[in-house]
């Protein structure tokens, strides 16, 4: 079956612009996660959804970052007034539930470059 998909695969934008990154989780997966990975580092947690609600957004770096999942499936990560330091690969993952020992399946990521 289809895995987690993310669009676009690459996004180049200018400093100060607004961007939206999309994640399509595996069908039926109730839990969805966003991570950010900088060059040479492991992914860092941003936000987690259980269904439509953000269960934990403690990883969002500041109020320029926001994410939604209005129907409990597709999620959009929104970044306002982008800065060069926002450049990274943004990864989305989903899992069947949010119970313990549930494997997270990752998408291919969106590489964001802020010029």
């Amino acid at each position, binding site marked *: 079956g289809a895995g987690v998909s993310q669009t676009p695969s690459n996004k180049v934008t200018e400093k100060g612009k607004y961007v939206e990154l999309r994640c399509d989780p595996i069908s039926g997966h109730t*839990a969805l*996660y966003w*991570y950010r*990975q900088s*060059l*040479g*580092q*492991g*992914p*860092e*947690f941003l936000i*987690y959804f259980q269904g439509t609600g953000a*269960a*934990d957004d403690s*990883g969002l770096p500041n109020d320029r970052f926001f994410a939604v999942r209005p129907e409990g499936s597709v999620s959009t990560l929104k970044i306002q007034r982008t800065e060069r330091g926002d450049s990274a*690969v943004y*990864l989305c*993952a989903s*899992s069947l539930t*949010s*119970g*313990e*020992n*549930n*494997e*997270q*399946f*990752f*998408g*291919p*990521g969106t*590489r964001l470059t802020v010029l």
Partner: protein
Amino acid sequence: SQQGEEDPQALSIQEGENATMNCSYKTSINNLQWYRQNSGRGLVHLILIRSNEREKHSGRLRVTLDTSKKSSSLLITASRAADTASYFCATDERGSARQLTFGSGTQLTVLP
């Protein structure tokens, strides 16, 4: 923030040799997972070991977990050039909202 550290940061071996990577973490966990990543994209789940397990095997992979030392190791036996990738450990921390906390990774290069 990163939970733990992988050791070594980089490892270069010949095809056919075994590769061992270590991971240390800081908090109580529900489980620890190992992932592989090629070319900075697409994390692939390799294996999950629960906090009450000490060793787990999957094909050429062997994972150990020592919760008293807060450490884990990943052994890849009979390595192949296709195993060249970055390997990350990730912990599901007790009391968390199920997000994973990743280490900084080990870059493995297997020379043909």
